[in-house]
Structures are given as C-alpha cells and as structure tokens.
C-alpha cells in the first residue's frame, strides 16, 4: 500500500505517528470551530481518514501539520456545504447542557470565552484559534486556510476587537492609562 508515495518509508512512519499524535489537537481545534463535541469528533475522524488516504499528496513531512489542519478546515467547509446551515448559538447552548448556577467561577470564565468565540464569524474564529491555540505563524495560517497573509492579519484584528466587545463583562479595564500594575502584567 502506498508504495509510490512521495514520502519514503521512514517518513511515512513518521507521518502516521504524527497523525496519531495530532488527534487531540485537531479535536480541540474542531471543537473551537464548532462547539459541538460530536460534530468535532466526526470532523477529526474524516480528517484523519482523508489524511491517511491522501498521504501520497504530501511531499514534505515538515508541512504535515498545516496540511492536517487544512484538511480539517475543508471538512468543515464540506459539512456546511452539505448541511447548508450554520450552527447558531441557540442550538449550541443546548449541547453544553450546563447552566450558570452549576458552574464554578473558572468554568464560567471558560464558558464566557467559548461563547464569545462562538459568536465570531467562522473565518475570524479559525484565524484566531490557529494563531492562539496552535501558535501557527501568519504564513502557516494563510497556507492552512488558503488565504493571503493580509487577510489573516485583518481577520485577526477584527476578531480580537469583537472578542473584547463580547467579553465586556469579564474585561476589566485599568482605571488610569499609565499604571505600574499594567507593566507588572507584562
């Protein structure tokens, strides 16, 4: 199987190991994009399946991570294309099945952040999560999502600005412009 692969035997072994080890990271990303555990799991399965099936297309093992996330992004696009629906916040709250009364303070903050990210347009959400969660460079994000670097930067700006608005409740601004406290944060 896959004897004519662009990757050599050792690289193919490395690729399979990478695929196995990436499951958790792919799932976290899929969850951040959809906020639906079952859908996220399905997307990861499809991604891994496609990655293994199409591994011959991968010529450079160094680019494998970005390639995996690109497949994940394409799987999500396909899902929306087929379902012709965008998950609404109302639908997704039901999936959580948690109420604020049952949440600890920490969990509440986590939920607030997730709700804020959920409200972002998917394009901004994807850029922000790839940069902040995966630590991808702008160039890698551009390659992953198949968009120009300039678009990555503008989506990131708009997304972070929107997050600040959505998180206004937990966003405590400093009272004065110049304070020693802020500098200690750095």
């Amino acid at each position, binding site marked *: *199987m896959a004897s004519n692969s662009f990757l050599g035997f050792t690289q193919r072994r490395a690729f*399979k190991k990478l*695929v*196995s080890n990436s*499951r*958790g990271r792919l*799932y*976290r990303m899929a*969850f*951040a994009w959809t906020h639906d*555990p*079952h859908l996220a*799991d*399905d997307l990861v*399965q*499809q991604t*891994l*399946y496609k990655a*293994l*099936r199409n591994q011959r297309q991968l010529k450079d093992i160094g680019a494998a991570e970005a390639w995996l996330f690109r497949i994940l992004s394409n799987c999500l696009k396909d899902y929306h294309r087929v379902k012709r629906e965008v998950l609404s916040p109302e639908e997704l709250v039901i999936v959580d099945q948690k109420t604020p009364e049952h949440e600890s303070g920490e969990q509440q*903050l*986590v939920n*607030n*952040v*997730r709700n804020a*990210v959920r409200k972002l347009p998917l394009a901004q959400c994807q850029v*922000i*999560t790839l*940069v*902040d*969660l995966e630590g991808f*460079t*702008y160039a890698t994000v551009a390659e992953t999502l198949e968009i120009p670097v300039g678009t990555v*930067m*503008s989506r*990131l*700006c708009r997304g*972070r*600005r929107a*997050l*600040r608005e959505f*998180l206004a409740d*937990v*966003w405590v601004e*400093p009272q*004065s*412009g*110049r*304070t020693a406290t*802020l*500098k200690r*944060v*750095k």
Partner: protein
Amino acid sequence: MKKDEYFSEEQLNAFVDGELDPEERSQLYNESAQLAELDLRLCQLRKAKELVRYGYEDVPQPSRGARTKIGRRGYFSTALVATFLLVFGLSVGFLARNYMVEGQADKYFDTAAHPAATTSNYLLHVASGEPAQMLAALQEARHLLESAPAGELRQVEVVANERGLDLLRADVTPFATEITALQASNVVFYACSRTMERLEEKGVEVQLVPNTNSAHTALDRVVTRMKDDWEYIKI
C-alpha cells in the same frame, strides 16, 4: 493623530504574536515604555490571546470506546505474552533439534506449498441500506477470504454505519445466516456506535446480530485499520 496611533492595529497584533521583525519590535518596545495608551492597547491584545488559550486549555475528547481501553497497558501485556511465547518456542526448538534428522524437515514443513506468510488485510465499509449493496459486501468478504493465496494470513472486517447498520441489526437484516457463516470463517463485523446512539435517540431499539463488535465510529475503525496498512474498500 495621537502618538500611539502611529502603529496600526495589525502591527500591534503582529507584535503580540511575535510576527514583527526585530527592528519594528524594538521600536514598539521603546514606544510602549513611553506611551501608556500604547502599552494599554498591547495589554488588551495579550489579554484577548490569553483568554482564548484559557478557554480551550482543557477540551476533553469524547470517549473512544473499547479502543481506548486497550491503551498502553494492553499493548504492554500483549508484548509480554509475545516475548514469553517467543522464548518458549525457541527453547522447545533448541531441545527438539536432536529428534529431527536431516531431510526430515520437509516432511513436517512443506515450504514449497506454503511460502512465507504475508498479510493482506481488508476492511469493507457499508453505509448503504440497499440490500443489493449489503449482499455485495458479504460476497466481497467471502471472495477476499477464498481468493487469499495459500499461506497468506488474510483478515477481513466489515464495518457498517448510517443506513448500512441495517445489515447488522438482528431484527432487520435479511442476511443473518450469511453473516453467521462469515463469522465462522473469521470475518469480523463492526457496528458504528454513533449510528446506534442516533437511532436510540429516535426511539429505535437496536439489537445486533450475535458476535458483532461495536466501533466508536465507523470512520474511527477505518482510520485505525488504514494506519495498520489494511486495504479499505467502500461498498
């Protein structure tokens, strides 16, 4: 224009993401030390970044069913048993060497008729509820078993999901007898747990043909087997 607005929002984001070149970064460091407004803007961006990380620091994955239970300890114990069997086999071979005279080996081991065993394994995936497709899957499984060259240790699995799950539902399948016969020939059948859950959510009680295994998802099984270099056939 205020002095802190010399820097665009894109530049500030690039700064907190480590995307600026050293010269620009140094300039921004210096300016932020002078300008409280600029410092504040950078702080806000860092906070947004940190909050996103915090929000997704711990995202538990759904249970992966039986596969997870195998885990490392399972592999370790399997390896231990395999090592024991290997040592045992070598010892028996060594002790029995005197009982076999030259030329007798061929009598016991027909090496010409049974060349070195190879593995060529197949996973068939059924997602269609059409009886013709189900039958095709079963026929293909039978054909794969029967066409294996002598000496080949061929394994065949059939995984069913979506409408294809009907193949493995005891009260629905028209092919229970064929499935039982294939199971007797070591064909292993897997039902997708996700599909079963969905049916049960709709109030459908799912009963599987005896000796059917369950996989977390059908794709999960496909991915696992593809990683093991099995051939995948979608019916």
